[in-house]
């Protein structure tokens, strides 16, 4: 018993280190005072105050537009890329090229993209951020979908064609349902990555139209405001739900895979 407690202690310290700052943020978001460091009483006032804050609401709007746009582009192109790499052009070099944006330092990507946009005279705005985020979104979706695709039993598609289905019908009725969990997981991944991405967005967004992380960054430079705590709490809630959803889809995919198929 004693040794067991000893063994789990480091784990608890780790959890404390991770979660105490978050707990403090959540706790302070219900603080009545507008000083972020002293607790004066319970209040929900900062939540409605968020809605009044034009900067934050503008940032939220831009971020959502960017995240949704990124997700759509990443899912479509990422899935196509996964198919190309898995089925049509298997090559180590292309693999590495496809995975690179996912592991490349953000700052490199950011500087490179900004230079590129300037070079071709592309106006910065939500679209430039969407394209930038899609660079790594596609890489993540492709990676997730590919794993699933390679695990798919090729005789399923053959059986479909054997039974008289065209290639298109086979894709819709057999291949797509087979990789759907991976596509959903990839979409969720692209969405959440885009949602809180800072570095690349900071370089590629127009100053007039910043994303939410940029808005938060600018406002906390002069000290943490209670609105930011409330906002962080809400974002926390969103990512928590996203993680739960991702786990559900993963479980669903396992159960669909079945025992023998």
């Amino acid at each position, binding site marked *: 018993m004693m040794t067991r407690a000893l063994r789990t202690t480091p784990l608890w310290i780790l959890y404390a280190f991770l979660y105490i700052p978050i707990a403090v943020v959540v706790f302070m978001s219900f603080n009545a005072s507008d000083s972020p460091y002293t607790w004066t009483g319970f209040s929900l006032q900062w939540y409605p105050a968020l809605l009044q804050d034009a900067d934050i609401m503008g940032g939220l709007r831009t971020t959502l537009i960017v995240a949704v746009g990124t997700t759509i582009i990443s899912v479509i192109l990422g899935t196509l890329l996964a198919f190309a790499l898995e089925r049509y052009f298997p090559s180590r070099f292309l693999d590495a090229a496809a995975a690179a944006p996912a592991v490349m330092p953000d700052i490199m990507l950011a500087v490179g993209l900004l230079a590129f946009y300037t070079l071709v005279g592309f106006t910065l705005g939500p679209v430039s951020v969407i394209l930038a985020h899609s660079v790594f979104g596609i890489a993540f979706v492709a990676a997730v979908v590919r794993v699933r695709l390679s695990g798919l*039993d090729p*005789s*399923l598609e*053959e*059986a*479909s*064609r*054997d*039974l*008289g*289905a*065209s290639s298109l*019908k086979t894709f819709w*009725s*057999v291949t797509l*349902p*087979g990789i759907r969990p991976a596509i959903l997981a990839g979409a969720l991944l692209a969405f959440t990555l885009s949602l809180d991405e800072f570095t690349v967005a900071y370089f590629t967004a127009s100053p007039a139209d910043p994303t939410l992380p940029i808005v938060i960054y600018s406002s906390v430079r002069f000290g943490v405001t209670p609105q930011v705590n409330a906002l962080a709490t809400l974002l926390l809630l969103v990512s928590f739900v996203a993680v739960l959803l991702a786990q559900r889809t993963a479980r669903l995919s396992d*159960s*669909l*895979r*079945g*025992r*023998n*198929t």
Partner: protein
Amino acid sequence: MDSGDVLLDISGVSRSFGDVRALDDVSIQIRENEFFALLGPSGCGKTTLLRVIAGFEQPDSGTVTLDGVDLLPIPPEKRAVNLMFQSYALFPHMTVERNVGYGLACERLPRDEISSRVDEVLTTVGLTDKRNALPKTLSGGQRQRVALARAIVKRPRLLLLDEPLSALDRKIRGEMQMELKRLQHEVGITFVVVTHDQDEAMSLADRVAVMDRGVVRQLDTPLDLYRRPRSIFVADFIGNSTILRGRFDQGTWIGDSAPGLSVPDTCRDAIALALRPEALTIVPTDDPRARVRGEIVEVFFQGDHALAQLRADGTVYLAVLRDDVLPRRGDPRGLAWDESAPIPLFEE
């Protein structure tokens, strides 16, 4: 065979995977309404041949025609051929009913016709109570029956079955074998069935092709395969037999074992002789009919009959025992057989 009733004509088909010659100059003609079996050890190219016929594998050379029409340029979905996969390949996200109805839905048949035909085949394979089940909830044998139902529901000209009954227990397997025969007669489907179970091939098929490492070693009716195997491989693969290697010399067989056996002239060009267990009679050592003498090595009781192994001159013979009194290990005995019993084998 007159060519008028040939349905499928496979001619000179070869297919290699790297160094492996999975099919080596295979030529087989399959008649309309025939029950044809492909028999052979694992890895001999049975599945590859079915995949060529179904359209999932292009041969390196050779032709395949169905009803006289070249099949090779036609994509799998347009061929009037259905394949039941060795791995079943059931769609995991569809219920049994939708799996079975899939092929009919692809033909855009009306909904009620689809459901009545699905009902019919589910009854045939005994799975009506599983219609709403997902494949992963079924047992291996049930999945195999779903795969079979899905393949037969389309009533193709030619049905290719890859080890269709291997996962079933003995009793259900027997029932399904009868069911396949009934389908063949009633619906008029031509069957090509792959199996490595020789009893299944022998009891079901009108004709059997025995394959070995991509080559068709012999193509015959089950009876002829058993009575007149041409090669040591086939004699060994189909049924039990004792093989005596050696050569023919003026009416006698010269081998390492059993020196000086007298054999008929039909054995002139043989490289070996095969003796079927039921052609051998175990006799007392002093019996004048005994051609060889030795001692009993082992006795196998098989229910309706018993087999004995007898070692004589270094060769182990396998013989059916007819007496009620079984000999014991170590008993001296002789073996007798008719002059015409040895089957001449001309190839390895």
